[in-house]
């Protein structure tokens, strides 16, 4: 069950863990400590880039900017995206 973000009414961004497989969006921020944040960014997962959630699970599969990434669920929980449907 997706957890309810208390600020969701004033913030359109969603954690990757609250996004359904197949949904697409734009990365808004990575709410992680410097090292882990840097590791993700170096793989191309940076704010402003489009990302597609391929698969959920204990390891999340993402597609972004020509790359396919596998990241731990615990990291995915701190990646915030703005869903394409919310932009529209």
């Amino acid at each position: 069950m997706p957890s309810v973000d208390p600020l969701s009414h004033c913030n359109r961004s969603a954690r990757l863990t609250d996004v359904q497989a197949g949904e697409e969006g734009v990365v808004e921020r990575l709410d992680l400590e410097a090292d882990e944040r840097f590791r993700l960014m170096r793989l191309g997962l940076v704010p402003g880039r489009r990302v597609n959630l391929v698969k959920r699970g204990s390891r999340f599969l993402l597609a972004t900017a020509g790359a396919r990434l596998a990241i731990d669920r615990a990291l995915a929980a701190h990646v915030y995206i703005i869903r394409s449907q919310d932009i529209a």
Partner: protein
Amino acid sequence: MNALLNVIQEDGAPSSPAVSAKERPCVLLAGLPNAGKTSLFNRLTGLRGHTANFPGTTVEVREGALRIGSTEVYLLDLPGLYGLDGGSLEQEAARAVIRGEAEGIPKPDAMIIVVDATRLPHQLPLTGELRAQGIPVVVALNMYDEVEKRKVHISLERLSEELGAHVVPISAREGIGISALLEQLERLLLERATFKEVPPRLAACSTCRGCVVTARCHWADEVVKNAAAESSILRSSVADKVDEYCTSTLVGLPIFAGVMFLLFFSVFRLAAIPMDWIDSGFGELIALVQYLIPEGTVSSFLTDGVLAGLGGVVVFLPQICILFFGIKLLEDSGYLSRAVVVMDGIMRRFGLPGQAFVPMLAAHACAVPAIMSSRLIENPRDRLRTILVIPLLTCSARLPVYLMVAVLLFGDNAFAGSLVFVSGYALGAVAAICVSLVLQRSLVAGTPSRLAIELPPYRMPSLRDALQSALDRGLMFLKEAGTIILMISVVLWALSSFPQLPAPPARADSSQVVAVSGEVVPAQPSALEYSIAGRVGKFIEPVFAPLGFDWRISVGVLTSFAAREVVVSALAVMSGIEGEVSEDDPGFINSLRRMRRPDGSLLFDIPTALSLLVFFVLAMQCLPTQVMTYRETRSLRWPLLQFGWMSFMAYGAAFVTYQLASIFVG
């Protein structure tokens, strides 16, 4: 393919005089992992390149020579990089080389940046970063054949303009565009002083207040938008589906198990053939030496010291080469990264990251290359934990011991014998898990880094590159492990040959044991007993007695402390010296079986054989591995600790095994 050829011709350089030959220009090959750097390197250097270490580090680099016209160029293949600003050993080394600060490596004159044309937005941020380093660059747009096949349009002119560097479309695998690349490289080396300035837009990026990485990514996205059609980002829904299955526990795990089974099956099946050749080859050589040189110290030195040592090293080559051939195929195909995802869930529970699975896989051939391949683990603590548990996994050098014990216990019964192997592997793996968990809670604390890896596209692996990798690993093993093992073999030979018996030993009764009123009095010591090794063995016999080992096995354990497989030949020698090899049954295992203790009971009863097995599974008996641990950790502390606790574990477990088995078996 025509379009590609046209492009190459349009882009072709005028024939120009060769680069000044006063000194070899140094050219770097850089790019992201899986961009096809290694393929291109192999293309450019043929099979003449070789792997070396960066001076003063353990980071591996491939270097080779390349001819452009009459000029020889020194080509250096940097490790696959995601960026220069990380803290890993490889990034540090790459940074030093690019800035011309690496000791023993000339300041680079040019750089070839290898870019996977099918994944431009992902590849270009690094190009931007490398572009800003002040070295003339040429961009090799690799896998261009694939882009053309899918009818995706990339404007090379625009891309060149945006990157401020010549872009040459190539296919490293098919060997297309290589000559155009070389022409461009030659031009670059000639025009050294007048290379294009860094494009202004990119230069501005590095001064952004925000994150530099983000800026580079956005720059890359812009470049792609300007130079290529939207569809240039190839994404296959088939790969999405395959990935979903390959990385799931339910389907992915059985697939993983199947792939591993196939890999190991071929390692053992295929390697058996050349191993037989090597074995009999060395047998022939030994016979030849014995025939040519009269029996004596020289002949014994050559056969028991040098040839036995060499044979003991070379015989492991087939398994190592085949395993690394397979690993490289899996890596190139893209599957290995998926396997890391599957294993991550399991390995994290034992305090190791998913990436540790690759070195641990290699450890089943040999711990030396395994420790080297642990470099792909970024987090230093995760890496240390991995290095420290690797020697517990069953390497090929343990197999002769497993085989010996299997035959000792069960004779020809193949099924029961295979149980010995299975329990050896399992005991090693369980011990590795336990040690990792203990380390995680004590000396090397911390949870493994969370998984975040790239899954490269699925591709047909190149046999040529896999072959090159297998050869590299084999040579590396010979260099790192071979020299040490050969040296030890010679030293051990000396220790077990000197001092020599004063009178020529009469083989038949030299070691007759006579029991007088319950006491054991050797009539005359055997040559081995008389030697330094024998004396030491006798001296430490009481230490190993609780494990069921007599002085002869103790000698075997001592001689194998630096290379474990030596125990088998040491025991063979001793059983021979006992003079109990019968004519009709020359198999040495049968003579081992007949070895007796002074009280007349069989030496290798079930408890002793089991305790020997357990001891050899767990003991740290490999000097090359210890040297490797030292070099990777840059501290004596870890190899010493490794030796300490593994010996302690081996002794303790063998003790418990022997005592328990003695109670149960009788």
